[in-house]
């Protein structure tokens, strides 16, 4: 009974291969996670370039080896501090601990004459002992970290001085040498000094700790929010204790390396000021004092910046005062830029994210005599079902028995039993925001869930995720594999599910902003249940919304909401791209569904108006508006009051169902015909409407239309 669609004669719809916009690229880059460490990274780059330009042989292999050898212990101390800071503490005692560990190493080596592995073990134990003291007071007892570690810093420093004072002369005069000791202190393995190998190993371990290990995640959780971590069942005090212990161990290792290399300590200044140096390095790397962040790479970038800056300047022969001015000034500068950048990043992101272009949906066509002011509001005759008991049924669907199903805002699929339609029960709890619905051949519901993807629900209520990602599109800065806003779907005769991802850039909460942008941000996807493969059928569509398989099963109708048009794909030749099935609609089309007479129902989520049509043609206006005017005062498209259009099988509008000005079904996003009635749902409605259709086939049902009359 359906008319033959002549695909080839329809006008082609241009679809851009990719969308390029400098502003969008900027916004996408700003939204990247690594952008946080841009400023420290740039600072390091500047320092490196500066050094390379002003010195001759600073980056010679010999000096690089020197740097690797002498910076290793400092780098280790920075990592130790990173662990403590990540757990929300601070450790001022690292310098004293470092000196003490170096002393213990020398004492064990020269005075006790122990073998080197035993020296290492005892040194690590000594470092850990200070960590344990810190951990007990600041972790287990829960005292303030700054004061606790200040106390251990003073005490350990004094103990170090007393001990070193007593033993230093003997240590200085000891003549013990040991090949392993010298190897650790001076030799290189694969032309990298041993100390540097230690630093590399520890960095990797810390990296793994924070990325992969439960304990690392506990540290980050405690540092991020102590209260939340405690409520989440994490043993906060033990975690903090262990963090200090671990830091103490690492500092012990650093002290050991120093002792093996220098074979001596200076009571006057070994480790003095180290805590402030490490703190500065950490802060330059992390861009402030940020607990709950464990990234050894950025911490080491900060360390490298500070260390190289200082080292290059003193090596260039500048005097101490001059070096201090520059160090202080440069650190203030880096911190200032970084703090300002972090503070303004999301502001910049927010102001560049919305990136409007001119959009011209053309004039309204083919609506002669069908506009709201030209005819009766037919929807006022609708009967209201389940009023107040469904919250936001974006799509409604009926099974062969006439039971009604819809999604709601709580993420459930509801069943409203026929024939009374008063009994509302939960079929399945999915989560997310269920939107479009369809029955597959086996009588299961397949639904598009915004924020989740494509979900299949059996009549028993079992939920199965079919897909939540597709392949990444070309030239995308941000990873767009995730299906952000699955909107509507339909199922082809071979079982392939065609569904739309309405916009890649906005979530369900602010999908309306996509209208202000007016860019082709959406895509049509397909999922083959047999191979379980997800494919992007057509990218860069303008808010692709409703999907409907034509009656002949050979074409696919896709509503392009902001373009006020309906596109058509040929299932046999999907790669040819879409053609225009219908355009110049008076409103924004949402779902499309089959009608019993071979035509189609088109829901209009909202009506166009000349003012906003004009606004859409001026992107600069929208950009200025979104930047300068509070959102409540924005000029916005009408997405409140719509209606339903009826087209024939070839896309000619033949009827329109409008609502009366006083309701009751304001915004219509979906409608299903079932045995002579039309069921109407709306994404912001709290009810479902039923309208008896005159002259409709009273035996026609959706499942039968798709899958034949099974029962």
């Amino acid at each position, binding site marked *: 009974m359906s008319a033959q669609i002549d695909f080839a004669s329809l006008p082609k719809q241009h679809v851009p291969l990719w969308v390029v916009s400098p502003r969008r690229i900027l916004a996408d880059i700003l939204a990247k996670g690594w952008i946080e460490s841009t400023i420290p990274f740039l600072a390091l780059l500047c320092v490196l370039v500066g050094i390379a330009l002003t010195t001759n042989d600073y980056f010679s292999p010999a000096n690089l080896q020197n740097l690797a050898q002498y910076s290793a212990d400092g780098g280790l101390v920075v990592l130790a501090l990173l662990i403590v800071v990540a757990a929300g503490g601070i450790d001022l005692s690292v310098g004293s601990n470092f000196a003490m560990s170096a002393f213990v190493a020398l004492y064990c080596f020269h005075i006790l004459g122990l073998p080197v592995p035993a020296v290492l073990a005892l040194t690590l134990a000594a470092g850990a002992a200070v960590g344990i003291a810190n951990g007990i007071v600041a972790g287990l007892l829960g005292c303030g970290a700054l004061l606790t570690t200040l106390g251990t810093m003073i005490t350990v420093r004094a103990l170090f001085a007393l001990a070193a004072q007593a033993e230093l002369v003997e240590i200085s005069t000891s003549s013990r040498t040991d090949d392993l000791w010298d190897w650790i202190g001076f030799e290189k393995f694969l032309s990298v000094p041993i100390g540097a190998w230690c630093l590399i190993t520890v960095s990797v371990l810390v990296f793994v700790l924070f990325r992969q290990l439960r304990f690392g995640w506990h540290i980050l959780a405690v540092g991020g929010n102590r209260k939340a971590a405690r409520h989440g069942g994490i043993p906060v005090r033990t975690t903090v204790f262990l963090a200090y212990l671990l830091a103490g161990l690492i500092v012990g290792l650093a002290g050991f390396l120093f002792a093996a290399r220098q074979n001596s300590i200076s009571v006057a*200044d070994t480790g003095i000021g180290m805590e402030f140096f490490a703190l500065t390095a950490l802060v330059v790397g992390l861009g402030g004092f940020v607990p709950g962040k464990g990234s050894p790479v950025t911490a080491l970038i900060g360390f490298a910046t500070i260390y190289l800056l200082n080292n290059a300047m003193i090596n260039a022969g500048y005097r101490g005062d001059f070096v201090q001015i520059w160090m202080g000034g440069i650190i203030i500068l880096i911190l200032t830029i970084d703090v300002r950048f972090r503070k303004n990043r999301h502001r910049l992101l927010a102001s560049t994210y919305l990136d409007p272009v001119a959009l011209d949906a053309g004039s309204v066509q083919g609506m002669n005599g069908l506009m709201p002011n030209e005819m009766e509001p037919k929807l006022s005759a609708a009967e209201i079902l389940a009023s107040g008991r469904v919250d936001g049924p974006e799509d409604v669907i009926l099974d062969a028995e006439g039971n009604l199903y819809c999604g709601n805002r709580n993420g459930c699929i509801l069943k409203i039993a026929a024939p009374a339609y008063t009994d509302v029960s939960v079929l399945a709890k999915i989560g997310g925001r269920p939107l479009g619905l369809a029955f597959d051949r086996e009588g299961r519901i397949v639904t598009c869930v915004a924020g989740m993807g494509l979900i299949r629900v059996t009549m028993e209520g079992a939920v199965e995720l079919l897909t939540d990602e597709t392949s990444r599109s070309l030239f995308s800065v941000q990873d767009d594999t995730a299906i952000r806003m699955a909107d509507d779907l339909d199922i082809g005769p071979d079982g392939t599910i065609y569904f739309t991802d309405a916009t890649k850039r906005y979530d369900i909460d602010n999908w309306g902003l996509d209208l202000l942008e007016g860019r082709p941000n959406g895509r049509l996807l397909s999922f083959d249940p047999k191979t379980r493969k997800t494919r992007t059928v057509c990218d860069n569509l303008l808010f692709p919304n409703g999907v409907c398989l034509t009656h002949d099963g050979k074409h696919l109708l896709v509503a392009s909401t902001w373009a006020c048009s309906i596109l058509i794909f040929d299932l046999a030749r999907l790669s040819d791209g879409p053609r225009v099935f219908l355009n110049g609609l008076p409103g924004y089309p949402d779902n499309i569904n089959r009608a019993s007479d071979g035509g189609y129902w088109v829901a209009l989520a909202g009506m166009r108006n000349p003012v906003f049509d004009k606004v859409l043609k001026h992107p600069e206006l929208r950009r200025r508006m979104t930047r300068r005017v509070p959102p409540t005062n924005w000029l916005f498209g009408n997405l409140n009051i719509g209606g339903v259009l009826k087209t024939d099988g070839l896309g000619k509008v033949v009827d329109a169902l409008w609502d009366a000005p006083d309701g009751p079904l304001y915004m219509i996003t979906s409608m299903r015909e079932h045995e002579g009635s039309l069921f109407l749902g709306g994404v912001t409605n709290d009810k479902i409407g039923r309208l008896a259709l005159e002259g409709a086939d009273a035996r026609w049902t959706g499942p039968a239309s798709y899958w034949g009359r099974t029962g």
Partner: protein
Amino acid sequence: MVYKFGNRVRNAAIALLVGASVALGSAGTTSAGTDIAGKKVIFIPIAMGISLTEGWARRMKEDAALHGYTLEIRDPAFSSSAMAELLAKAISEKPDVLVVHNPTVQLLARQIKQAEAAGIKVLQLNLQSNQPSSAFVGANWTRIGHDVAEDIVKECGAGSGKSGKVAIIPGQLTAADSVMLNDAAFKVFKDHPEIQVVSNQASDWEPEKARQITATVLQQHPDLCAIFGHWDVHTMGAGHAVKDAGLEDKVLVYATGGGDNVTCKAVEDKILDRVWSYDADGQGRDAATMIDLLLQGASAKDGSMLSVDSPLKIIKAGPTYDPSLCWKM
């Protein structure tokens, strides 16, 4: 009043000249002036910005300008770890002579050995490391400690009619020079039981700390006879405390130092009474001479160290005071 040269100094100087002439002779070179032009010397002090190192640096720079070799000064600003790093970089640059100012006897020993092994001649200043190197220029701390202690015994000991109470203010109890000064002094005091050391607290080289320690000690021991400060700069703090207590005519304040004119000013102001000066200016000249010789290839015959023991000047308040013993920047 110039202190007489010790025997060792004389011997060292002779050895040095002999060694130098031997080296020159064997090399068969002609003029020293042209020979060392363009060579490279790196000087790493403990810190610049103190009169001692600035005084040395001045003389060395003059000498470098005169003879046309380059002198680079790298300032670790009192950080011994920075010093170790600077030394490592300097060694990899392979200068002809490396001048280091040891902070302790052990800290730089390994690197001095490394440098010597790499063919760099290392000149140690003011404090000799455990590790011998090509040359050493500096004061003999043991002798200073001994002489000061002897003088204290003379002034405060038996027969002086004074209490015999002495306060020592080291820079740091473990600093090598402090250790040597104290060892020598205590050795002298051991033979004189009438001398009683009532305080031996380190000032961390800071005048304010020395002042506070001294003020407190003077409360307990107003009959204190002498104070032995290990460095003139921090001892001036102690001297101020003595002056504030009105005891400047009763308590003798001893110090050692580089002997620039600030020291003489302090002696004039009765802040310090007797200063054993190792004359940083003269040391600078000695160091410069030694650099010249090393650049010309000088070495001791048997491969041992060339060593110059700095002559001492004693700056004494009283009728024999002579401001010309101090040097001016």
